[in-house]
């Protein structure tokens, strides 16, 4: 019996020594003891795959593919993303002149959305106040970040701001792939609000709000 207890204690200790405790960090892939149907012959997104020649599961659509999409509701009616329209390009139809005004109806919901998207995508460099003092400037990692209150940017038509967000300019990369068309116009609208907050005159306010100014 004594031998049994000794053996038992040793084996318990051995198991604990070998397997360790819950929650400890490990590098090797987890062990699947009963991997019933856990790994199926199907493609998961952004994974390697031998099925396609370029070795990836996520494939780009064929060139010329038109997304089946919900139209964007502009102030002048619904527009599909494949149409040659100012809301998609930032240009006046048939030209490369930028449209002067945001084609989306400016609502408080649009500005709220713009604020959220601006904070996510733009504020890291341009700063929450759009003065170019984002985190990349603060840590001294980026030499040139545009101050969006510069006269040249304030004077840009809305369409040009949209175009720059979509395609990038100078050192700024394109954001067209990650910020949707409506969100880009929402950001433009919010940016205009930020600029007005700095440039506005007391006369711009409705009379009932003007009295609140000191």
């Amino acid at each position, binding site marked *: 019996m004594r031998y049994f207890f000794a053996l038992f204690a040793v084996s318990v200790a051995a198991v604990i020594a070998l397997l360790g405790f819950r*929650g400890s960090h490990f590098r090797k892939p987890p062990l699947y*003891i009963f991997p019933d149907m856990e790994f199926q012959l199907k493609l998961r997104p952004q994974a390697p795959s031998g099925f396609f020649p370029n070795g990836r599961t996520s494939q780009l659509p064929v060139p010329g593919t038109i997304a089946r999409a919900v139209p964007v509701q502009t102030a002048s009616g619904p527009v599909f993303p494949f149409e040659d329209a100012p809301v998609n390009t930032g240009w006046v139809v048939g030209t490369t002149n930028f449209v002067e005004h945001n084609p989306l109806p400016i609502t408080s919901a649009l500005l709220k959305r713009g604020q959220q998207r601006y904070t996510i995508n733009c504020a890291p460099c341009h700063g929450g106040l759009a003065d170019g003092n984002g985190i*990349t400037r603060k840590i001294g990692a980026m030499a040139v970040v545009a101050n969006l209150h510069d006269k040249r940017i304030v004077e840009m038509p809305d369409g040009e701001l949209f175009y720059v967000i979509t395609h990038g300019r100078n050192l700024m990369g394109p954001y067209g792939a990650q*910020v949707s068309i409506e969100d880009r116009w929402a950001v433009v609208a919010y940016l205009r609000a930020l600029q007005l907050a700095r440039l506005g005159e007391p006369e711009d306010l409705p009379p009932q709000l003007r009295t609140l100014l000191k």
Partner: protein
Amino acid sequence: MVLTGGLLVGGALVAGAWYYLTPKYSRVGYKPIQPVAFSHNTHVNQLGMDCRYCHNAVEQSWYSNLPDSAKCMNCHNQVLKDDPRLALVRESAATGQPIPWVQIHRVPDYVYFNHSVHVTRGISCVECHGQIDRMEEVYHAQPLSMTFCLDCHRHPELKLRPLDKITDMNWQPESPLQQREFGQRAIKNWKVESLENCSACHR
């Protein structure tokens, strides 16, 4: 004597199976070496970036996308632009060959988890991924087992939070009572269907 021995061995086997044969042991703590030493702690905790700068499709898509390396280059074309740690990112952005990141969080192929429906209905990233904003290297923080899903699906009011706090990993409710009240209101207002039938997840 045989009885004592049998009980001991049997008990040890049961205890061992209970302790080791669950994802709480087999998956929690998985921390593979990634091809690029990306630090969530640096980018999110120290620099204050939002999760959705990189994982931009998480609100529309069933999976939370990994960013393409061109997105890294939005900043890293200037920030640490010659750093050897980022050589693979620069190469990937130049050639278009993806970085072979190692997947950590993975549900079985017969489970259909949808990210967008959770993050747009008040479930934060932190509930399943842990304090990922503090991780130098990402590790598997929660078991992601079926019971883990069901615990929350049976009591969603304990986890729902304001929609503007989804990517705030440090948000805490004011009190458990306030959380419960907010959660119950949110279930009604946002039409939260924390389904418990099989086909909600298994198809």
